[in-house]
Structures are given as C-alpha cells and as structure tokens.
C-alpha cells in the first residue's frame, strides 16, 4: 500500500503532477456478470478474508441482503431485488461496491493531499494514513460507496485488491467466484468479453442486455453485464446516468477561482486605496488623534 508508487494518475488535493514514470500500465477492469451470479456471497467472504475485515455480526432483517449495507468493514455486498419483467419474476442480484470511476468524485472532493490516489491501471485507492475523516469523499461519490469508520474516523472502501493486482494477481472476489461471474483483466479484454456475453443474452430473450460502463464518470473499472441495461435501476437502484453532482463540481470547481478573485480584489483594493487616497484623519481634532 505505502510502497513507492510511480504510476499515479491523480492524487487528491494535489495541484502538481504526481509521479507518472510508469503511467503506461494497462487499464484493468473487473467485470461482474450479473446474469451468471447466483448470489452465493462467496465474494463477500473472500473480500473480508483477504482484506482482514471483521464487521459486527448483524441481525437478519428478513431479506437475503446481509450485511444490509456497505460499511467500513464491509467493502462489498450482494443486493437482491425481485422484479417482474416480461411477465416473469426475476431475481436480480448485484454485487455492490466501489466502481473505480475513471473520473472519481471521491478524489475530486477530498481536501487532504494524497488521501485518495488513482493508479495508472485505473484503481482508485484510499491512503488511510492521510485521511482526516472529513467525509467529503462520501458526498463526492455518485455511487454512495465510501464509509466512515466509527473506530478511527477514516473512510474505507473496496481497493480492487490493489495489493494483489500490483503483484499480478486478480482480486480476491474474482478468484473465489464459483460460477465465473466475476472476471478480471485489461479493460479492453473485459469490454470485448462483455460484448460476447451481451450478444448471447440478446439471443436468449434479453434484447436490452448491455454493458454498464457509465460515460458520465468517464467509464468505470468495475463493470456490469446486465440483462436490462436500459433499466439499471432494477438492480437495487443502480444509477442510470451517474455523474459527479453539479453541486460538488461547482464547489470544487468554479467557486475556487471566484473566491481567489474576491479575496485578491478586496486586498488589492485596500492596498491601492491607502496608497492612493491615504488615511482618513479627523481634520479639526480637539483631541490630537494619531492612532
């Protein structure tokens, strides 16, 4: 994690160029084929095991979702949804977690230099020792992913097993998946493979099958094959056109130059006015006033 990295595309709150000597690294992607996932949660277990995470044992809330949500100790959860499509009941199961956006809202929002970095291979990773616990990333993320730990006030999320990927291994969830529903490779290969899957699905009664790689965030390094790509909302509220919120863009974008101009104008005005017009003193001073 804290190894010397020379392949950093972006670094939070850092106006100057991060080290990119190895930026030629190929972009990776994890492809989650929702249509072949059986909801066994092996990936959830593998994630907790590899990353050494121990969430508190919760209680059954009457549905399969367990734990019910992401947390600082649960970086991926299976979300289950029952829908009726084409007159048939469908049980749609989606593995939720960080999408490793090409244009990550979390990184854009983060005020702490180097607390969030994006590697040349596309992985967006939190560097917890630099995290100050402000939670800005939570507001920046269009997918509601980062979670603040109550224990240490740092934010955690899926690392795409950056430690494994760095040494040429696939993420733990990919390795574990018994049906091969989760794959890992170059983004190019995964996109091509997804294309084949989509073609296949189209011949099997899912004319709207497609790849979920939303352009609004520059594409993602975690992609889904969906049977109903026209209605991603069916998959427990997957967003159709996710983008970084315009409010966040304004806050992190235009406001900064405007503020700088405002401060500079106020300061410069004072300086020029004092030099130009000079101090304002009482003229007929009964009490010699020279403060």
């Amino acid at each position: 994690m804290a190894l010397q990295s020379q392949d950093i595309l972006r670094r939070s709150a850092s106006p100057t160029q991060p080290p990119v000597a190895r930026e030629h690294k190929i972009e990776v992607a994890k492809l989650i084929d929702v249509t072949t996932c059986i909801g066994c949660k092996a990936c959830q277990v593998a994630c907790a095991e590899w990353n050494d995470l121990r969430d508190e044992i919760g209680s059954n809330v009457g549905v399969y979702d367990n734990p019910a949500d992401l947390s600082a100790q649960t970086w991926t959860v299976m979300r289950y949804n029952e829908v009726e499509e084409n007159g048939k009941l469908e049980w749609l199961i989606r593995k939720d977690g960080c999408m490793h956006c090409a244009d990550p809202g979390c990184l854009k929002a983060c005020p702490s230099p180097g607390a969030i970095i994006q590697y040349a291979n596309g992985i967006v990773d939190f560097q917890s020792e630099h995290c100050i616990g402000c939670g800005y990333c939570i507001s920046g993320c269009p997918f509601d992913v980062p979670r603040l730990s109550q224990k240490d006030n740092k934010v955690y999320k899926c690392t795409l097993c950056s430690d494994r990927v760095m040494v040429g291994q696939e993420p733990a969830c990919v390795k574990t998946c018994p049906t091969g529903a989760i794959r890992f490779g170059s983004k190019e290969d995964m996109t091509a493979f997804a294309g084949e899957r989509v073609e296949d699905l189209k011949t099997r009664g899912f004319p709207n099958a497609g790849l979920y790689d939303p352009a609004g965030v520059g594409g993602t390094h975690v992609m889904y094959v969906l049977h109903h790509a026209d209605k991603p909302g069916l998959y427990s509220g997957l967003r159709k056109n996710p983008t970084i919120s315009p409010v966040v863009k304004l806050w992190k974008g235009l406001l900064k130059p405007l503020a700088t101009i405002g401060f500079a104008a106020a300061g410069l005005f004072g300086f020029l006015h004092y030099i130009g017009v000079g101090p304002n003193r009482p003229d007929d001073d009964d009490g010699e006033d020279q403060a």
Partner: protein
Amino acid sequence: MSREKLIVRYNAAERINHWLVALCFVLLALSGLALFYPAFFWLTGIFGTPQLARIIHPFVGVLMFVGFLRQFFRYWHHNLINAEDIKWMKSVGSVLRGYEVGDIGKYNGGQKGLFWLMCVCLLALLASGIVIWRPYFSPSFPIPLIRVALLTHAVAAVLLIAGIIVHIYAAIWVKGTIRAMVEGVVTYGWAKKHHPRWFREMTGQSGAKEPR
C-alpha cells in the same frame, strides 16, 4: 494628552467579546481555507495536525457563533438601516475619497451593511456546518443535502472572509478606529467627523462644524 477629550465607545466586556470572536474567526478562516485550497492545506497546522484541524474547527465555529450572538444582541438596534444610510451607501464613491456623507449615528451605512452580512453568513455557516459535521451530525442528513451544505459553507465562508477584509481595512483607513476597540475610546474629533449624530447623542453638544 491629558487634555484629550474622549468618548467611551466600547466598554471592556464589549472589547473582550469582539476580540474573542476575532480570534475564533482567524482560526476558522485559516483552518477552513486549508481544506478549501489544496495548496494551503499546510494551514491546518495552526491546530497541530490536519486531523486535529478537522476535529477542532467546528467546535471553534460554535464558540464564534455564540460570541457573535452576544454581539448581535448588543448591536442590532444600532444597525437598523435608515434614510441617511441609504444616502451614505449611494455616495460610497465620495466617502472613499475621504468626504463624510449624511448625519451618521453610531454606525454608517457600510458598517451596517457589513453587520447584516456577518449575521447572514454566520447563520449560514452554523446551519451548513452542522450538516457537514462528522462524525456527529452528518449521518442524519441525506447526501444531496450534505452536498448543498458543503457548497453553502464554502460560499458563506468566502463572503465572510471578504467582508472581514473590508472591515479590517476600514479600521486601518479611518484613523482612531482601532483605538475604539483596543482602548475603548475615541476622540471628540473622530466622533464629530465620522458619526456626528452619535457625537451629539453622547455629548449633548452640536458638532459645531457640520460635515456636508
């Protein structure tokens, strides 16, 4: 010196109140700007470490708000805007060239405007500050609201800081003003020139030479 004729403008309690609020403001503005401008992140150092700055800032914010609230109740009735103030505001141009405009009471149009700007900004900063305050309060608010609060907090902070720059400059420009907030007194000349109506109220004298 001993012959200097003085009027008390701020008593000790008012001065302590002012400088407490001012100290809070400086700490808040520096630690806040550290998060706002990546290049100034090092300013979090005023509270020791970045994490400490993140933790302490909101508490100082509440302290500043309470201090300002006390000032609000002290001064609001001196800051109601009247026709003289409108005249003043319309003629800022000549005011800036050093002329006095209008029969000004305790505060002029500019000071009143700034007073209300500060009130609005501090209310906005408190309200939005609570919404973005982790780990305590934010979890009770939906993320879209937190985003708006983050923007609001930053905008209000920028306005307040710009306003305070003007406030500080005005105090430097108008000689004799800083003394009012440090020693608590102003000279007859100062009061007569800049706040003639207040001068008459305080002394019962007419300001002799009326400013135009």
